[in-house]
């Protein structure tokens, strides 16, 4: 595959595959709830807590849509001012993977350590019921923090040759 096809492939993997993971998440959550029923652990309180975790996705997706939309604009604007540009190739793609992973690590460290960011992220850890739904429990402000921490990656200034 050439560069263009690789980019399309990665795009497909990022969106389509992730969508399927969400579908499977519903299956796993269903099995977890079924397990609670069979082991007599299920209660209205636990179910409502699970439901509230799931429902955080509604405002989260809305802000994600707005914030990430603005972020794309911000990133492209910053990109225009960067005097250097790098081609997309195997090496830079590998570098992106590693730096994206490092960024996520730093971001996660910071949102647990810095109180202002913890304010946004604490929702993710605020439930006493742990199941698949908890993994999707986010606050409105999580995407804002994510946008800020990923901004330095724009400095790579990757361009399609």
């Amino acid at each position: 595959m050439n560069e263009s096809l690789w980019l399309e492939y990665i795009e497909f993997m990022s969106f389509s595959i992730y969508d399927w993971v969400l579908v499977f998440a519903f299956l796993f959550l269903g099995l977890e709830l079924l397990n609670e029923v069979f082991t007599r652990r299920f209660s209205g309180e636990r179910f409502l807590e699970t439901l509230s975790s799931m429902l955080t996705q509604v405002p989260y997706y809305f802000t994600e849509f707005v914030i990430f939309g603005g972020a794309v604009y911000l990133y492209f604007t910053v990109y225009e001012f960067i005097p250097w540009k790098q081609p997309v190739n195997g090496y830079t793609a590998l570098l992106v993977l590693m730096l994206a992973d490092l960024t996520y690590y730093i971001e996660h460290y910071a949102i647990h350590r810095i109180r202002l960011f913890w304010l946004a992220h604490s929702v993710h850890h605020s439930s006493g019921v742990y199941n698949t739904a908890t993994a999707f429990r986010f606050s409105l402000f999580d995407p804002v923090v994510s946008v800020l921490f990923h901004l330095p990656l724009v400095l790579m200034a990757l361009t399609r040759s």
Partner: protein
Amino acid sequence: MSLPKRNGLIRVVYGLSMIGMFVFLGNEAVSYASEPPAPAKAKAAEPVARSVAPETTAPNTLPIKQNKLLKVQGISTVLNLDGDVEAQINQHWLAFAESKLANSLPQSREVYAVYSDYDNKRNSVSLTLGFAKQGSVVGTVTATIDTGLYLPVSGKTVLESWQKPDLSAQSLRYETDYERWVLDKNYQPVRVTAHLGLR
């Protein structure tokens, strides 16, 4: 503090579902990567090595209507889609560059690569490289680009375009597809646009 109880059967189903998810996602990823552009097979999906500068405008995705028959005069070969298609195409371009025909590049500096006569049984396709017909030249053949709807894909060859996932929904005709190459004064490709025949 003890771990919560687990139902054995649900635990097994959960584990199998987890494995199933990875198998499914892996299959999705692999099948996407190796999906052949019909009617060609996987090897035919290899991109063409000739590189061109990217288009300055966004790729045109609206079909255009070809009202007139376009006759392309050039040299033809049959590509075996089970073989190394890229090498065969490059070989044919080389033959074209070395032919007498290459000396009569029109002012428009446009070269057409016409893919026609798809043969599903033999898994082959004819490739004609040439110019819009101006007169009869000995030793050349004529490929006809039919009238009808064509989907232009800027910056891509026909083989690359077949691989575009967003084209899978389009009803491609697979009768005649062509590329229009524009060369510079040194006969180097400046840009290419693939045109895929639509039903």
